[in-house]
């Protein structure tokens, strides 16, 4: 049985009061509930405050470039389908710089879990608007608020009939842990957008702001119903739903590659006879 302490405790570089702490805790809880051992898990992240999270637990880690976590994760999963691959990064990283990879990951339906720490701001670079920043969110870079409308990741994911689309909140750790556990158990691509206060740069969407608005979706929300999901994806403002918004069984990406079905590529020797046959085709 895996225990929380197997995942270790680390000093972090986060600000006291940051929502990242609770997300980290929820992630650990989910890993323990899923009975995953540290070496079975690979965390891939980009760059940002959120993207530091994998450094703060015991696991395999590939901390890559800003915006490029999903392609790395896709490659790793294809190379070793036995790894439980979890991507962790910020809203800027995932919906900004990395937007094109998110579209591709949803379409591919790779079996991995994407946790977006969504603080509606660029934290590490000191508070510029992120794609999810709301209208009128004033920063040094956006003195009159963002010039573009906010990106609604859930609506886009639902519109693409993504495999698993959920929203969590760092202020509901147990619920979040459960959500992550569901995402980990899901076969295919799972997107969990996690609302998170940034105490240093987001003075609008604070813990209290979220707390007041967030509610856990009732059991009767039909995550299999596209229209209902789209409606929930657009609920924002007075009330913000938490939970699995949309879910759709679909074919696994990896299964399309016979080599991947045979297990980790690293273990597969070059077939000399096959190679000779291939060479011969050019004779």
């Amino acid at each position: 049985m895996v225990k929380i302490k197997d995942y270790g405790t680390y000093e972090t570089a986060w600000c006291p009061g940051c929502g990242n702490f609770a997300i980290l805790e929820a992630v650990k809880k989910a890993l323990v509930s899923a009975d995953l051992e540290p070496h079975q898990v690979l965390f891939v992240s980009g760059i940002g405050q959120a993207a530091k999270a994998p450094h703060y637990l015991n696991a395999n880690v590939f901390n890559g470039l800003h915006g490029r976590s999903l392609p790395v994760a896709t490659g790793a999963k294809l190379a070793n389908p036995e790894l439980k691959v979890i991507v962790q990064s910020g809203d800027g990283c995932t919906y900004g710089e990395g937007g094109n990879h998110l579209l591709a990951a949803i379409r591919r339906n790779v079996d991995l879990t994407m946790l977006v720490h969504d603080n509606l701001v660029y934290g590490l670079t000191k508070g510029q608007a992120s794609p999810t920043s709301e209208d009128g969110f004033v920063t040094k870079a956006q003195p009159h608020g963002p010039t573009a409308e906010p990106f609604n990741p859930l609506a886009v994911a639902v519109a693409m009939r993504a495999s698993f689309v959920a929203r969590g909140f760092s202020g509901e750790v147990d619920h979040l842990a459960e959500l992550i556990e569901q995402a980990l158990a899901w076969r295919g691509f799972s997107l969990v957008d996690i609302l998170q206060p940034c105490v240093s740069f987001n003075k609008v969407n604070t813990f209290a702001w979220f707390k007041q608005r967030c509610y856990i979706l009732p059991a009767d929300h039909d995550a299999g119903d596209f229209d209902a999901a789209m409606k929930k994806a657009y609920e924002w403002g007075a009330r913000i739903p938490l939970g699995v918004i949309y879910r759709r069984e679909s074919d696994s990406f990896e299964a399309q590659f016979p080599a991947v079905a045979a297990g980790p590529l690293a273990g597969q020797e070059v077939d000399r006879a096959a190679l000779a046959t291939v060479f011969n085709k050019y004779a």
Partner: protein
Amino acid sequence: MAEKKLNVLVGGEAGQGLATLGPILVKSLVRAGYHVVVTQSYQSRIRGGHNTFAIRVSVDKIAAPREAVDILVALNAETVALHRGELASRGVVVVDETFAISGDGVLVVPYKELAAGRYRNVASLGIVSYLVGLDERVVADVVAGYFGKKKKELEENRRALERAFAWAAGVDTSYQRSLVAVDEPPKRLTVNGNEAVALGAMSAGAKFCPFYPMTPSTSIPLTLIAHAEDMGLVVEQAEDEIAAINMALGASYAGAPAVVATSGGGFALMVEGVSLAAMTETPVVVVVAQRPGPATGLPTRTEQADLEFVLCAGHGEFPRAVFAPGDVAECFYLTRKAFELAQNFQGPTFVLTDQFLADSYRAVEPFDVGGLPPVGAYAAPLEFAEPYARYAVTESGVSPRLLPGASRHLVVVDSDEHTEDGHLTEDLDARRRLADKRLRKAAGLRAEVIPPRYEGNERPELLLVSWGSSAGAVAEAAAALAADGVRAATLHFSQVWPLVPSQFVNRLRGAKRSVCVEGNATGQLARLIRAETGLDVGERVSRYDGLPLTPEYILRELKK
């Protein structure tokens, strides 16, 4: 009198079937025991325009394309207008009767009697095959292999071929340019540069190739896909080149030897990923098939102008190795070497080719499967300290590399500066130690450098210096000069980084006159040599009009 060498140029519009005719003719010639050097010239369009497929064929080994055409096979009238001027004396032109072209050496073919429109390229194939003296059965076999499963097509093409041979047998023998027959032709492969890169990668143990299509690199992943099921490869079209290289790094980290292939513009998008490969110390082979730039430039033509770009690509400082194959066989062996170094030194290595070489079919000695250990396969280190630290500081700079998930040891890699265990750090001493560790790998790479190849007179009055795909043209130009009594020699670089000056400075110093021959405008190798040795390769021959260097071009420029 039978010929020992010939130059056949087939020209026509895109869509007229050159891409079928050419490779079949080439493979037939190789099966008949000849050597070939193919030059493909095509436009950035799918139909129309003007394309050529040039085959230089020879009984003896050859290395370069030539300009003078012995047989011009014109699939449209425009081809005659454009290329008649290139005919050698006694040159033959094969045209359709509808072109209404006549004259000395013009063989007018009544194609409509031989085949329906779609099969005329194969009728042309038959005629030219006859003219060069190929055995009909050899050609028919290749045709059968080509159309393999498509029964009806095969039947029609076979008939066109037969009729063409039959018709050609009746024409005046003055049109024939029979090659000297090769008795008991040895088995050779017909492979172009891109195919050779792909085959080299497979043999080295490549398991993963994410790609985004880009001319002239695309046939590398396409060749890998064609054999993916047999060889257990994963080839996936990425959403863009940034994704391609990052997918490759993810896969490589998890144990799958990975390769990406692209051209200049696509490589530009991979530059950040190259730097990531270096920092995370993840093996990856990057193939850059050059074409003329800047920007989109001439997407289907050739150039050697991305040498400096590839040498300096990526922010920050890190060691790398850059290979530039001189011919198709080298495409195979140097790609293997690139895998070997990527794996052994844990970082990015490069194979720099170009459109000319990528598309140039050659007759290649069969690769000996027995003698080709998969260098790319991941080998677990024999020992390492515990707790495991991915970036343990070592004398060589190379740290024992484990794979994530393969044991209880955790493998942590980071694009930030990190401690030995892979976790991000802002400790400036650690920075220095880890940077030194990474940079120390340069010494190991230097120890493995393939020295430039020197050939010719030991005290030359003229030394031609070159790199990459121009090897053949330079060698043949030097041979022509030598035949004219010039004390000529060549110094050719198939690995362009790192350079080890002691391997070649005496050669440069020993030449009376030295000329750097490059397929670019600014003389990038010459600059690189000066940067590394302080020595000036006095003169230059440059070509940057999109066409490959030829012996004739070099000789003309040298005379200027």
